[in-house]
């Protein structure tokens, strides 16, 4: 295995956006999902996010894993299990429209009970699961179309200090080195008869079995730290404000202003609807079930 970031180079519309644009657009959509409770508006927001996601032309082959994870979380955990099955309807709901009644279940101590699933919680669950989906559609383009080597300079330009921004770059520098060291350690321990797949009795022993791998890698990684500090000081790190010589690779273009303007507009629309109209809060079309 080789430690490689899942960055996919390309020339799509989203690829050509400035990393800062992608990040700010993402944050604004997160705020929108927090403002909204209305399933209709969340659906519209998700549709917009999905359009943005599709503009990035990311290969499904690489992305299915991320989507599988969030779909499972959104549909099964958030929507299904914890809302529709076991969740409470919102406080303002007074009457419930039953969808189906599950067969009675008998449990020890608790006794027999029967669960009624209501349309109200179905609408709630639907609205809730749209949040992680919209957020995911906004962040995946950032993760997969932005070279991680630009994080340092991008966050520096967003106002982080030289130190924190450089720490991001330095972390990137160490990822392949530490991954290589990890696999050397795996080989070294296997040569001593250690088997990765072997089972151990009990949870504690199972966790302790991580020690022959984790201890050498950890100590080896931090043991050289003081020398790195010296290497940096000897090359004048920290004497003053740094230049980021790659900074000119980042600049906002027309497309960036369009995307940012659109994102701000969406946010303002959400705020306006929420404050001045009945749109935005929990929506249940009772008339459909009259």
């Amino acid at each position, binding site marked *: *295995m080789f*430690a*490689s*970031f*899942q960055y996919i180079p390309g020339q799509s519309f989203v690829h050509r956006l400035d990393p800062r644009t992608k990040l700010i657009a993402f944050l604004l959509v*997160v705020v929108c*999902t*927090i403002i909204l409770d209305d399933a209709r508006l969340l659906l519209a927001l998700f549709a917009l996010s999905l359009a943005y996601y599709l503009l990035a032309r990311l290969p499904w082959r690489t992305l299915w*894993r*991320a989507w599988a*994870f969030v779909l499972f979380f959104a549909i099964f955990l*958030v929507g299904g*299990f*914890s*809302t529709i099955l*076991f*969740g*409470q309807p919102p406080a303002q709901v007074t009457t419930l429209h039953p969808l189906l009644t599950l067969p009675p279940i008998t449990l020890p101590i608790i006794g027999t009970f029967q669960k009624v699933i209501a349309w109200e919680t179905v609408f709630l669950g639907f609205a*809730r699961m749209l*949040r*992680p989906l919209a957020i995911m559609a906004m*962040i*995946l383009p950032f*993760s997969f179309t932005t070279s*991680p080597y630009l994080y340092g300079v991008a966050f520096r330009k967003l106002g982080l200090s030289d*130190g*924190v921004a*450089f*720490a*991001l*770059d*330095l*972390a990137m*520098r*160490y*990822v392949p*080195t*530490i991954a290589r060291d*990890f696999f050397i350690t795996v080989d070294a321990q296997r040569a001593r008869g250690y088997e990765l*797949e072997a*089972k151990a009795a009990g*949870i*504690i022993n*199972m*966790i302790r079995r991580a*020690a022959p791998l*984790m201890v050498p*890698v*950890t*100590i080896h*990684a*931090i*043991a050289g*730290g*003081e020398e790195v500090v*010296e290497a*940096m*000081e000897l090359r004048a*790190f*920290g004497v003053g404000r740094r230049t980021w010589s790659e900074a000119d690779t980042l600049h906002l273009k027309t497309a960036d202003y369009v995307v940012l303007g659109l994102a701000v507009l969406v946010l303002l629309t959400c705020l306006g609807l929420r404050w001045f109209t009945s749109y935005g809060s929990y929506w249940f079309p009772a008339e459909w079930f009259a």
Partner: protein
Amino acid sequence: MATTSMRAQPKENLWAFGTREIVYSAIGAALYGVLNWVFNNLQLPGTNLVSFRPPVAIPMFMGIVFGPLVGFFTGFFGNVLGDLLSGYGFYWHWDVGNGLMGLLPGLLPLVGISLARAQRSYVIAAVTAIVASLVGMAFPALLINPFVMREMDFGAAFATLWLPAAVSNSVNGAILVPILLAAWNAYRARSGR
């Protein structure tokens, strides 16, 4: 080589972020990211819904040894890197939760505890790991999810998000943080730091 040990290491402000903190933050984040990635891929037996994550000990350990900011950066950015390497998305509130797991152990000096080389310190380290897990995971699972993102009711978030993560991280941390700390103390004894 041994003379590296004689480098002066003044007791600095807990919140200082100088060259040393930058270096250990970067190393810690890369380490946590790589270990998250390999343990995600190794898929050890007996781990289904709750992913088996021994690496959670790394941010806690870094927090204890190098302070709260290094612990936070290790947990936060290491988790981001692990997800980037694994091809997952980006879950900012869980990243912050992981950051808190590294930050909290770094606050021990505030309550007057220093993990010197006494045997007892390993018990304290284990307890610290548990507290850091419970509180760290509470941020995304009990605060952000039910009250800010409003994806689940508190009860559901407690049972399906917080409990599995907090318990699994506590057990992993309580076992592995003392082991890592003992190894580091031994290494320091060699180089006389």
